[in-house]
C-alpha cells in the first residue's frame, strides 16, 4: 500500500468527507492503486519537457473589462435555503 490509513483520513477531513471504518481498507486500496499509477509517470524522463499546465495547447483568451452582468439576486436566491436582507444565511462561523 503506497498510502497509509492516516493519510487517507487526512485527505478525507480536508475534503469534508466521512469514510466509514468498514469502507476504509477498500478506499485506501483503491486510492493507492491510483497513486501507484501516477508514480509510473514520475519515472518518465522529463528533463527537456516544458511542464504542461493544460492539455489544450493554446493560451488564455482575455475579455474586455466591461460590466456585462446585472442584478440577478432574486432569481439566484430562490435557490438558497435561507436568506435575510439580501444575505445568504449559513450556520454561525467563527474566526
Amino acid at each position, binding site marked *: 500500500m503506497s498510502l497509509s490509513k492516516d493519510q487517507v483520513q*487526512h485527505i478525507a*477531513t*480536508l475534503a*469534508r468527507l466521512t469514510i466509514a471504518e468498514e469502507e476504509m481498507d477498500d478506499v485506501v486500496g483503491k486510492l493507492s492503486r491510483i497513486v501507484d499509477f501516477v508514480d509510473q509517470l514520475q519515472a518518465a524522463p522529463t528533463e527537456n519537457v516544458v511542464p504542461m*499546465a*493544460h492539455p*489544450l495547447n*493554446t*493560451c*488564455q*483568451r*482575455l*475579455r*474586455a*473589462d*466591461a*460590466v*456585462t*452582468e446585472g*442584478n*440577478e*439576486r432574486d432569481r*439566484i*436566491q430562490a435557490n438558497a435555503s*435561507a436568506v*435575510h*436582507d*439580501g*444575505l*445568504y*444565511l*449559513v*450556520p*454561525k*462561523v*467563527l*474566526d
Partner: protein
Amino acid sequence: MNAAWEVVIGLEIHAQLATSSKIFSGASTAYGADPNTQACLVDLGYPGVLPVLNAEVVRMACKFGLAVDATIAPRSVFARKNYFYPDLPKGYQISQYELPIVVGGELVIAGDDGEEKCIRITRAHLEEDAGKSIHEGLDQYSGIDLNRAGTPLLEIVSEPDLSSAKEAVAYMRKIHSIVRYLEICDGNMQEGSFRCDANVSIRPRGQTELGTRAELKNLNSFRFVEKAINYEIERQIDVIEDGGCVRQETRLYDSDRNETRPMRSKEEANDYRYFPDPDLLPVEIDEAFIAAVRETLPELPGAKQERFVADYGIKRDDAIILTASRPLADYFEATASASAASAQTVAHWVIGDLSAALNRDGLDIADSALSAAQLAGLLDRIDDNTISGKIAKEVFDAMWSGEGSADDVIEARGLRQITDSSAIDSIVDAVIAANPGQVAEYRAGKDKLIGFFVGQVMKETAGKANPGQVNEALKRKLAEG
C-alpha cells in the same frame, strides 16, 4: 529596539485592482452596493460556468511589475487554492502558485539607519477576493455577502528584508504610493482596497537561520501595521526569554486592545492542495505587449522626488511629502509654474496651510476649495509685497470660504500692505511718543522690547504694515533718541 534580538519581517500586500468588472466575470466591482446584487453565477461557482480572464487585470499587473523592475513572466498559470469557508462558494480560490505573473523586483526605502535600503520583492500574483461574512445581529447564523467575491487582487509578496515596524510601514507606504501613481488601485484602506499581512519573526542577533514566524492578519491601516508588529515583536521576545518557543500560527490584530491573538483555525487548514486550474489556460505575455505597457508608465514617486529637488530646489523632506501622491505633486507643480513666488514658498504653503485646510474639511486635493491658479495668485501678492505672509493666512481662509480671488479679498477687506515709508514713519513716531517707559528701557539695553514696538505698530495698522519696513523704521528712530 532590543540589542540582543534581530527582527525579520516580510509583507504580503493585497492591492485591489481598479477594474470595472471582476477578474473572471462581467459583474461590477463597485463598492458599497446592496448585498449580493453584484455576484453573478461565475462568482457564485455555479456548475457549468467558466471563468474568463479580464484583460485589464493582466495589463495592471504588468504595469506594477515594470514599475518595480520585476520580470513579467512570459507564461503564468492560475491554480486552485482549496479550502472550505462559507464566503468562498466554489470551495477554492483561483490564485497563482508556481508560476506567478510578476517575478522578482525591488524597491528602495529609507532604512532605520537613515541610509537607503533595498527591499526585494519575491513575486506578485493575481487572484480573486472572497466574499464577506457578517456575524452580528443574525442569531445563530452568519450572513454572506458575495459582492466582493471575484474582485481582482494583486498580492505583492516581499522578501523578509524588513528589520522593524518602521521599515515595514515605509515599504508599505511606498507600494501604496506606486499603485496609486500607476492608477491600478485606489489605495482606499477603509474600504479594504489596500491591506496587508505581516510575517514576523525574531532571532538572536548574528544568527543566520530564521526564527519561527507568526503571520499577522487584519492590518488595514499604516498605524495598525506599526502597532501590531511592535506588539508582536515584544510578545515573541517575552516568549523566548521566558524559555518558550514561538509557534508558527496566524494571529489576528485587535486594534481596540492593541494586541495580537491566535486565530482558532486548525493546523491542517494550511494544506491548500494547489493544482493548476483546468478551467483556465496559461496566460502568455509577449514582448510587444510589455513594451506597450511600458509606454504608459508615468513618472514614479522616486524619480519625481529627485526632479523636484534638482529642478525646483526644494528641501528633500518636502519633496518626499509632495510626491507621496500624484495629484498633490501635480498641484504643487501647477502652482509653482503659475506663480512668481519661489518654489520653496509654494511647497511651504501646499504642505502647510493648504494640507491643513484639506485635512480639516476631510477633502482630497482633487476637491480643494482653492485651485492651483488661485493659490498662485495669493502667493504672487506676498511676493510683490502687496500683503505680508501673516495677512496672507487671513486671505487664504477667506478664499477657502469662497470669497473670490486673492485680489478680490485684499480689495474687499482693505488688506493691502502699507509700504509707504512716510506713512510707516508717522505711525512709528506715534507709537514711540505713546510709550515713553518702554522707550527708556529699550534705550537702556533691553533689546527684546523691539517685539513690543512692532506689535504696537501692527495693532495700529491692523497688521497691514510691511514688517521689514516697520522693523527698520523702529530701529532707526529708537536709535535717534
